[in-house]
């Protein structure tokens, strides 16, 4: 490729002449105790003494890996007042919502609430996170929609929280992690899917979550560059689990979206599942049709971090294979691997397809947007 072709290949196109929907925006706590106003004194004392007690190596930090940037954020996403990236609504409005003329943004809080091993504490923190999203963001900015945080490890409390929030117009989805304590299709989690279907609200699986298991079947990699890619396998595993354990057979109207896991793996996973299910389907009686059919019927994907094939037409092929109606654009603001809406999905598409990707699919998929 010569220099001119390089420039053309990487030059952004005006991507929309309409307002778009960003399916992955991360609101952050202004400080470590920002959820304290929303929990009982007993839990404040507990956190001060014992912390969040996640499945982690270190006492006072979340992940075991040194991330690539402070707070995993874009260097320019720190608000002028010095508070953490994503914590200041006014700066988020200026830098992101207004700058890109975003119609709706789906908040995906990653504040540790659903990672703590103590499920009573976790449920309290999830409830607090839901109240906090309303107070700090969605009540003050109608373009933003919250995610219902739940402690999936206590399905009873999770269902109560879903039922309390799902009809509230501040919330667009239920949020789960792509890393759960057991594969998410197992029956202990089914009440969550039942509640989602009954309330007609989708479930978003954001990468990460409370899993106590190693990122890989051979343990822990040494570097962030590995961890950052390996974590996509948790999304493969969740999709596989839901399909083969029968979640989509039993709850056929459940809609799920895999968030921040990329998507180039999706067609291949469907083929692989079909190929081996064909031989071993007698082991999975609740998967009654070729697994790829459930994949097409029940599962959506956000695009970030969008894989970058060596040739544009191969990116287009991925969309065609997965289905244009399943793909939803996301930026991951304010994180470092943010996808710029003007540059991330560079491939030929029609105006109708562009609208589907950047707006229409998400508008139909999420609850309480209209």
């Amino acid at each position, binding site marked *: 490729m010569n220099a001119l072709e390089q420039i053309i290949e990487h030059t952004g196109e005006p991507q929309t002449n309409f307002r778009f929907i960003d399916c992955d925006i991360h609101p952050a706590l202004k400080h470590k105790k920002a959820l304290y106003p929303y929990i009982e004194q007993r839990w404040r004392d507990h956190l001060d003494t014992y912390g969040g007690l996640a499945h982690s190596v270190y006492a006072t930090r979340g992940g075991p890996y040194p991330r*690539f940037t402070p707070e995993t954020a874009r260097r320019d996403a720190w608000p002028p007042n010095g508070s953490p990236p994503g914590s200041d609504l006014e700066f988020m409005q200026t830098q992101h919502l207004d700058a890109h003329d975003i119609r709706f943004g789906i908040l995906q809080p990653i504040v540790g609430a659903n990672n703590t091993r103590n499920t009573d504490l976790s449920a309290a923190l999830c409830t607090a996170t839901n109240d906090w999203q309303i107070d700090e963001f969605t009540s003050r900015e109608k373009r933003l929609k919250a995610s219902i945080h739940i402690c999936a490890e206590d399905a009873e409390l999770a269902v109560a929280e879903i039922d309390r929030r799902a009809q509230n117009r501040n919330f667009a989805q239920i949020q789960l992690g*792509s*890393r*759960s*304590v*057991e*594969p*998410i299709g197992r029956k202990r989690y089914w009440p969550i899917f039942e509640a989602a279907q009954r309330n007609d609200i989708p479930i978003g699986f954001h990468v990460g979550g409370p*899993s106590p*298991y*190693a*990122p*890989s*079947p*051979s*343990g822990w*990699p*040494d*570097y*962030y*560059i*590995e961890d*950052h*890619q*390996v*974590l996509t*396998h*948790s999304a*493969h*595993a*969740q999709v*596989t*689990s839901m399909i*083969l*354990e029968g979640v989509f057979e039993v709850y056929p109207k459940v809609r799920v979206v895999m968030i921040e896991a*990329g998507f*180039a*793996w999706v*067609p*291949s*996973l469907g*083929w*692989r599942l079909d*190929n*081996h299910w064909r*031989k*071993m389907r*007698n*082991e*999975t009686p609740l998967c009654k049709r070729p697994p790829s059919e459930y994949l097409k019927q029940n599962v959506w994907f956000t695009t970030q*971090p969008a*894989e970058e*094939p*060596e*040739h544009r037409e*191969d990116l287009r*092929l*991925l969309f065609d*294979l997965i289905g244009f109606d399943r793909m939803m654009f996301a930026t991951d603001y304010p994180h470092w*691997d943010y996808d710029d809406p003007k540059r991330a999905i560079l491939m030929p598409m029609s105006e109708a397809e562009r609208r589907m990707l950047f707006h229409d699919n998400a508008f139909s998929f999420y609850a309480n947007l209209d």
Partner: protein
Amino acid sequence: MSITDAIDCDIHPGVPTIKVLLPYMSDYWREAFIARGQDGFQPASYLPNSPISCRPDWRDGDAIAGSNFDLLQKHALDGFGSRFAICNVLYGGSFSISETMAAAICAAVNDWVKAEWLARDPRLRASIVVPTQNPRLAVEEIERIAGDRRFVQILMPVALDMMLGKEHYWPIFEAAVRHSLPIGLHAGSLYRYAPTTNGWPSHFLQDYVGNNHAFESQLLSLISQGVFVKFPDLKVVLIESGVTWLPGFLWRSRKTWRAVRPEVPWVNESPIDIVRRHVRLTAQPMDGPADPAVLERVINQIGSDDMLLFASDYPHWQFDGDRVLPDGIPSRLIEKMARDNPLATYPRLQETIQ
């Protein structure tokens, strides 16, 4: 399509029982297995009675798949008309918790393969199975066997005690390069960790499909730890990994590397280039789409005609009839997969035909 005179890079003789290995063990271990009445060392990550372990028309009653020499000769060697076939034995030593038992079983398997398989058909070649649980013992076993040039590869399950790029395993890579032996990573797990990062699924099918997670993470580990910088002549063969996952994996790894390469400055070229130079894949299963035109596009996305190796995976059930290669493989690739690529991957096979 069927193809004759090919080099079949993955067939599986089956160890029917520990009893056949006892003649190849020391008194100590023979005594241990007999006096303690121990048998049943088939790996749980390849369940012996599961449908995938043997194609229905290749089943021999209740016998362990692949354990009958005459049938393997008839079905795989004569049946596919192969010029050579590489025996990859999946058995207890490679999976054992005990390091010393691992070494004893692996050594017995290698001697058993030599005496009861390689000696009986000149078309057969084999991989050296090694106790990765203890790299020092693994290197000892490589040194003991490598003089026999019919052993063309070092074989290990893909999901191990730890990530493969760690220095722990480098003595094995050093021995591999010194003896012109690629490292073959086969689908399967020591089950030291859960098969998925979300724990233990209900079904073997989920475990099997999840082998991808191990293949991808081990590749990333080898790249990121600089193994291919330290051992520029090392080749790694991914056996029974599927194929269609590769392009998406490559695109993502290049994107991530572009962004965070200062973390691993010794990785001074794109992971795509590293993989194309050092990594090979056996082509069963392909895990491709029904539409041959789409399969052809995906194979072209790999971006190298040197990477795919013909394999039947006998007696595992990956295809029906004699259609070892599915429709959609570009015709320019067939000859390369069947002969050129295996010969380039396995220097010891190349010697054979000179």
